[in-house]
């Protein structure tokens, strides 16, 4: 299938809700997703033996959403990433199975972007050591079969994800040494108090905190360096500070992420207008490009419930169905996003963590020192190759933005590395407009 009325990019909660809503109204829907199975990061499925945390309410929401998707008639293509939009209403995607990758030329009437978010990483000495992961990153790998039973894990960084990750790792048998949240308690209390209108979130936070028992949850505390054992080369401790005192905490693994950044690269490539780093949408989740919609985290980091709701709105809107009954809840979700951003605002001390030798761009091993004299993101790219490696600046871009205030420049295809054959395919398409099956 290479022609669909509605193509959805991203099979996390927003994409799943959008696909189910549109397909249930009789539209032909194609759901593309980079991951091996639908569910996105929050519902990432895993290895058989991995022990799952029992959260009946969360499990029921997931089961229901996946059931709605499977019964909707939407076509799902997993292991598929979009890398170009060479013409209006056209996407090129690479489907990576175990065998040779396959290139897909896809056409749509309406497109829904549900590309989710990734973690923000901030460089500090030792952050490139094996054993240092994203917080959600370690959780994903544990779901994927990495055994952490009996391992000492420090969870650090910022955002509500830290508690969730710590609770899940604990269920998988890890020993959580502590959870270090950079935001000060003075920022978190007003946020917690504002949650009265989100009882589900309060229930969840309490359940995570209860699960953690006596594990310390330190606010206003952040990592300044990670150290490897001299003989082993693997992580042995992490230096933490609360601004007044500094101490080393022994651990084998560090799960560290500084809240989330939206995946807006495809939206940018398609010409959708961004505001403050997020994709601008109207009440129907429609972007500045008339036949392109966007739902979930790329429009504002607001979590699971907002993603499901906005996905449904986008799906219904694309199927020409009314969305009035969902509007009030969506406006509550948007307010939550604003409060979340304020509560987990990054402290300025995090900008002074790198030493001159600390690597900022991991793909090209570009140090803080070589970036400090550059004037802009473009200047840094041209002079140092920062952001020019395989991740295309997705890791170091947000880091450089935090460290130097550089804003990312235009996005160009391919959005991520593809085999040369994919680029040849693109060119042959430009020369011969007929569709290749």
């Amino acid at each position, binding site marked *: 299938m290479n022609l669909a009325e509605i193509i959805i990019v991203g099979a996390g909660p927003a994409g799943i809700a959008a696909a189910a809503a549109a397909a249930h109204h009789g539209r032909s829907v194609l759901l593309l997703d980079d991951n091996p199975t639908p569910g996105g990061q929050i519902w990432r499925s895993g290895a058989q033996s991995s022990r799952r945390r029992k959260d009946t309410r969360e499990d029921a929401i997931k089961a229901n959403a996946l059931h709605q998707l499977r019964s909707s008639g939407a076509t799902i293509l997993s292991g598929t990433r979009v890398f170009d939009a060479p013409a209006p209403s056209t996407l090129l995607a690479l489907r990576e199975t*175990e065998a040779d990758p396959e290139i897909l030329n896809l056409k749509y009437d309406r497109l829904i972007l549900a590309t989710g978010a990734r973690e923000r990483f901030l460089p500090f000495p030792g952050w490139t050591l094996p054993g240092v992961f994203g917080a959600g990153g370690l959780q994903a790998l544990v779901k994927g079969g990495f055994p952490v039973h009996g391992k000492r894990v420090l969870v650090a960084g910022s955002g509500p994800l830290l508690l969730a990750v710590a609770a899940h790792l604990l269920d998988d048998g890890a020993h959580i040494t502590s959870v270090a949240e950079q935001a000060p308690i003075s920022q978190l209390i007003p946020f917690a108090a504002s949650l009265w209108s989100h009882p589900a979130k309060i229930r969840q936070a309490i359940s995570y905190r209860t699960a953690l028992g006596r594990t310390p949850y330190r606010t206003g505390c952040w990592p300044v360096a990670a150290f490897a054992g001299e003989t082993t080369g693997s992580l042995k401790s992490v230096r933490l500070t609360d601004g007044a005192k500094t101490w080393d905490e022994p651990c084998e693994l560090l799960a560290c992420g500084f809240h989330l950044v939206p995946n807006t690269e495809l939206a940018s490539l398609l010409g959708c207008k961004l505001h403050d780093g997020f994709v601008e949408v109207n009440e129907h989740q429609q972007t500045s490009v008339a036949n392109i919609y966007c739902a979930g985290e790329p429009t504002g980091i607001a979590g699971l419930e907002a993603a499901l709701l906005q996905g449904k709105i986008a799906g219904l809107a694309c199927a020409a169905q009314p969305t009035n009954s969902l509007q009030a809840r969506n406006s509550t979700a948007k307010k939550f996003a604003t409060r979340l951003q304020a509560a987990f605002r990054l402290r300025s001390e995090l900008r002074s963590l790198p030493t001159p030798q600390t690597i900022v761009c991991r793909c090209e091993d570009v140090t803080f020192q070589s970036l400090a004299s550059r004037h802009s993101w473009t200047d840094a790219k041209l002079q140092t190759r920062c952001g020019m490696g395989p*991740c295309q600046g997705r890791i170091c871009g947000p880091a450089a933005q935090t460290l130097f205030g550089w804003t990312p420049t235009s996005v160009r295809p391919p959005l991520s590395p593809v085999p040369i054959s994919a680029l040849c395919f693109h060119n042959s398409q430009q020369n011969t407009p007929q569709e290749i099956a």
Partner: protein
Amino acid sequence: MPENVTLHINGAPVQMPTGSVVSAALLKAVIPPRRSVTGEPRSALCGMGICFECCATVNGIPHRRTCQLICSDGMVVETER
């Protein structure tokens, strides 16, 4: 479905629960998938296909993101050494 699968990393067998991703097998075996441009050992960071730190050659195809690839029996993984 069998409970486990066995893949080979740099020639050595590694057993993983069915449904595991290849980067989890690399972590379990304590083998960094890649060397950075200045020679540092690197392993998976983001776990979700964004950072490209877990890339390795799988069944002869180079630059596969091992965190997005499910392990299968007899799979052959080669890392940069």
